[in-house]
């Protein structure tokens, strides 16, 4: 079974600084997708960024980028120029690439990010 581990329950960053959230996963599949979701206090789950395992190039979305190390099964999220609105729970998630029952997302336990002035 696939597992996703986020070893940092809480992180703190100053406004305008850069922070990296860690995520490791375990799978025997060669093709899969990885995601970072943000959950602000409003509870809404918001997709931040996604990565296809077959792509070597790291995904980037504005201030958000990932460091995907397939061999190490590591998928960290870097937030640059942190803003107060980035404060939230961040969840790393895994999904196998094939269809059917594999469409479920397997989540890590989350990292609570605090942004300070």
């Amino acid at each position, binding site marked *: 079974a696939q597992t996703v581990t986020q070893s940092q329950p809480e992180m703190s960053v100053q406004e305008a600084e850069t922070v990296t959230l860690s995520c490791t996963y375990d799978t025997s599949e060669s093709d899969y997708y990885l995601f970072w979701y943000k959950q602000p206090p409003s509870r809404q789950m918001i997709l931040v960024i996604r990565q296809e395992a077959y792509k070597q190039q790291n995904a980037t979305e504005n201030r958000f980028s990932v460091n995907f190390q397939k061999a190490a099964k590591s998928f960290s999220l870097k937030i640059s120029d942190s803003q107060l609105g980035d404060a939230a729970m961040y969840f790393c998630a895994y999904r196998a690439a094939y269809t*059917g029952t594999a*469409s479920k997302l397997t989540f890590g336990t989350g990292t609570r990010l605090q942004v300070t002035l």
Partner: protein
Amino acid sequence: DTAVSQTPKYLVTQMGNDKSIKCEQNLGHDTMYWYKQDSKKFLKIMFSYNNKELIINETVPNRFSPKSPDKAHLNLHINSLELGDSAVYFCASSQGTGELNEQYFGPGTRLTVT
């Protein structure tokens, strides 16, 4: 113009009661999901339907029964509610089950069982 909506957003009820949570999506997606987020914020899949057919049924007590009357709706009925059922329940939808199909989440329903 809400994409995935859930009703109610908050639900407080007593042990032993039966309750339902409704989910509707207007994205034209054919796959819908129910996830449970416990008090420690851990999110886990419960069920998934594709074109009204159940395709994922994780280890969930049979007091939980999903019902999909059509592709746009996936309701969750819970019988004989227990204290441990207190959680936030999220509905989600996606187009298809394969490839890089983003799952869109509803706002969640916070269920409190007293």
